[in-house]
């Protein structure tokens, strides 16, 4: 075991954390509202949209992320080029930073998971809450924003936490898109001297620290959000 390498590479791996986090955050920013809206379409049984959401969720949840990555990474550029050509858009598709593909894949993926999380969370908030909001004169949007969503978030939070941790872990698959994230950086560093044992230990440590931290933050936030619940059972 090469301890100097172990320590040095730990920081190399650590330098990939921002990339992992940016992907995670962007994906969540897109997936949270979109997932919520699509969950509503399923709960309110809006004809075409709910069917779409159903198939979408089923496909995304039914296939490994890595396969989704491969598919998006190889098909999107082809697709874009043909569109650009057709409409004579003078833009080189291949100048796109691979991180955009990561945003696309992980947003698509996380949205599907959020739909399911919100669907079950929304159903735990009793319909009476919405009715009470109407009865005091709130509009649909006001009722959602002020009464329903805050309560939905509390029930959904543990699951959102799990999804976030899984998302962070899944960004490690970004190496397939040449993303300079934690895993890839560590492995590149390992290549010169084939220090793979050390590299994997570093990867393990970085994810363990990062994910535990995220989990801890979520727990604290959950406590704060659910202060109205703590009184008695």
């Amino acid at each position: 075991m090469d301890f100097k390498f172990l320590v040095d590479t730990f920081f190399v791996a650590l330098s990939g954390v921002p990339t992992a986090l940016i992907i995670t955050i962007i994906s969540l920013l897109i997936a949270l509202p979109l997932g919520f809206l699509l969950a509503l379409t399923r709960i309110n049984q809006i004809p075409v949209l709910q069917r779409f959401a159903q198939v979408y969720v089923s496909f995304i949840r039914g296939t490994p992320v890595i396969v989704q990555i491969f598919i998006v990474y190889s098909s999107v550029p082809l697709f874009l080029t043909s569109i650009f050509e057709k409409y004579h858009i003078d833009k080189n598709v291949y100048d796109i930073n691979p991180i955009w593909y990561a945003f696309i894949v992980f947003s698509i993926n996380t949205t599907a998971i959020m739909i399911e999380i919100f669907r079950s969370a929304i159903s735990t908030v009793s319909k009476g809450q919405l009715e009470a909001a109407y009865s005091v004169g709130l509009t649909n949007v006001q009722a959602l924003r002020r009464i329903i969503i805050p309560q939905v978030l509390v029930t959904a939070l543990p699951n959102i936490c799990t999804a976030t941790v899984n998302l962070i872990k899944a960004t490690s698959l970004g190496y397939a898109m040449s993303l300079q994230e934690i895993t890839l950086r560590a492995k590149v560093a390992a290549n010169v001297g084939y220090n793979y044992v050390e590299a994997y230990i570093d990867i393990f440590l970085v994810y363990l620290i990062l994910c535990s931290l995220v989990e801890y933050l979520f727990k604290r936030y959950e406590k704060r959000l659910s202060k109205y619940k703590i009184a008695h059972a």
Partner: protein
Amino acid sequence: MEKYFNASYIWESFPMLLPYVKVTFLVAGLSVLFGTLLGFILAAMKIGNNKVARKIANAYITALRCTPSIVLLFLVYYGLPALAENFGLLLDNVDKLFFIVITFSLQFAAAMAEVIRSAYQSIDKGQFEAAVSVGLSNFQAYRRIVFPQALVVALPNFGNSLLELIKEGSLAYTIGLIDVMGKASLIIDGRFNAHALETYIALSVIYWVISIVIEQVFFKLEKIFSKGKQVIKTT
């Protein structure tokens, strides 16, 4: 786009991939078996009154949640033989499948512990009390009244975890076990990476179908087991 995309590669991939679904199922099946057993133990530790046991179970679950599967796989594949050596056991010639099953059992157990715990706690305590009050022993009360109801609650989450497991199982390829994912990689490598997209499409269809079938099976199971649970709404 047509220049690079040729649907015939998709059809061609199916017969090559399908035989390896067996391996995927083998890994998943064994991991579910052992993972569920371990999950029960962990859930019992979490529900029980022993503080130390609860702490251990919690730490275990957190650690496994935070470890990427591939890292866990390597930890088990290399760490376990190193550990075993201290006890004079040589695991170098043990089949790879053994390590893969251990890895995914460990991971599945963490998920199952939570599934089992929440299912158990969702059953009203009154059910148990009513059972002992009509003269059932504690064990009989659990076996006949509490567990059958908890099972219904646990089924959907169990199904979800199983789907996750099957997808994660694709990583087994990393230590050289050839399952359906591994076979796809081999096919693509055999073509020097040409027409990878088509192969991956075929692969994703296979995974999708598997997951739909599993979903349906669990849906049916839930229906069968939830006799007496169809809730009639009263306003």
